[in-house]
């Protein structure tokens, strides 16, 4: 219990620190001005989301191999957290785009790929609601989760190649557009903070899943009387 509180506190502190750094330590970007500061939060969430989906992938593999329910709990927890993070990416993207480009959405490579990623994991969670039996649900969603994660690099690669064929406005000024060294440090610090925060959310969600299981067992014991 104490460990959870410490993790939560550390996560919150890191996040506050990274927000401070994003506003006061990072220099202002030349062309876009203050709006560019969304970048740290936006891309930080994106990377943390991908890490959450990576955790989900590993949990899925472990479940198929070991068939222990804790891996299924970890799978659904990390998928949900990843989805929440990805949702925030999709919300902050247009908020960034609109003042800069005057449009809410553009089929820019990263935003489009993120949207497909979002759809994949929404499908993962939807699949889970459509299979009632626990073990079967765990197995089927783990298998789909594995296929979905293997698809992710293919999605990003395909869409990036597609955009080189048909260029369109790039929202984030391209990843490799040379970040100033201070910006880089603030960025990686934000990535760290978002990852720790994601980890904290995954732990809390995992505990919820574990408790659900406990309630199920107790309910069945109570009915058996």
């Amino acid at each position, binding site marked *: 219990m104490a460990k959870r509180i410490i993790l939560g506190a550390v996560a919150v502190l890191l996040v506050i620190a990274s927000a401070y750094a994003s506003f006061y330590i990072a220099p202002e970007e030349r062309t876009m001005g203050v709006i560019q500061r969304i970048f740290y939060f936006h891309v930080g969430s994106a990377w943390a989301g991908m890490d959450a989906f990576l955790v989900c992938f590993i949990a899925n593999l472990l479940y198929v191999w070991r068939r222990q329910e804790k891996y299924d709990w970890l799978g659904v927890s990390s998928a949900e957290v990843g989805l929440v993070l990805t949702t925030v990416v999709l919300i902050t993207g247009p908020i960034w785009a609109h003042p800069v480009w005057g449009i809410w959405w553009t089929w820019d490579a990263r935003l489009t790929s993120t949207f497909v990623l979002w759809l994949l994991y929404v499908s993962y969670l939807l*699949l889970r609601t459509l299979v009632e039996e626990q073990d079967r649900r765990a*197995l089927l969603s783990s298998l789909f989760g594995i296929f979905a994660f293997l698809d992710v690099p*293919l999605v990003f690669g395909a869409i990036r*190649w597609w955009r080189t064929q048909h260029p369109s406005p790039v929202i984030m000024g391209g990843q490799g557009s040379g970040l100033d060294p201070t910006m880089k440090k603030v960025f990686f610090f934000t990535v760290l903070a978002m990852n720790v925060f994601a980890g904290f959310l995954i732990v809390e969600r995992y505990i919820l899943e574990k408790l659900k299981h406990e309630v199920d067992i107790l309910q069945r014991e109570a009915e058996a009387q």
Partner: protein
Amino acid sequence: MSLLSNTATLLGKELRTEFRSRELLTTTVVFILVVLILFSFAISPTAEESREFGPGLLWLAILFAASLMLQPCFLREQSNDTLSSLRLAVDDPFAIFLAKLVANTLFLLLTEILMLPLFAVFYNIPILPQLRYLLLVLLLGSLGISIAGTALSAISAQARMRELLLPLLLLPLLTPILVVSATVSVSLLEREPVVLWKGIGFLAIFDLVFLTALWLFGEYLLEE
């Protein structure tokens, strides 16, 4: 070698089952046709627009059609529980998948080839000059659709709302196929055609990745 002979036998069964009634093929062809026509009504393309958007719309129609065509793949093994018999009949469960995905690829390809002349006429796009490259893209794309579709169809057959679930699972997963196949096709059918070998290579990689994944995890998809 028993994998190949098992697969061949099962493939024969799949093909015979379909050609007996040909219902899958005919309905799929008609479906793609209807989708293409509806696109024209919705967009009213000019001749130039037809050339630009046509191939992409063709692939979209193929994807929709495939997500319907793949429904019966494992569903039909549920009545009379033929799936258990199949599993007993083969040493390697991968044979079942291999047979089904080859059959599905063939059905898709057949449908597409039947559609091509109609597509060329309706969208005013000459397809003969680049036919062999076009067929290559159709082959690799259809293979990708079948591999992923066969695997996912095994999953959705075991869930509720399977008619809606299969497209829901399949379409996001197949985004790379749609994007790349459409882009390569458009480029092939331009006034000055270009063969985008990188795209074709990408399709091959997609097929390889999912074929390997199916090989590794297929048996779990068929668990009781």
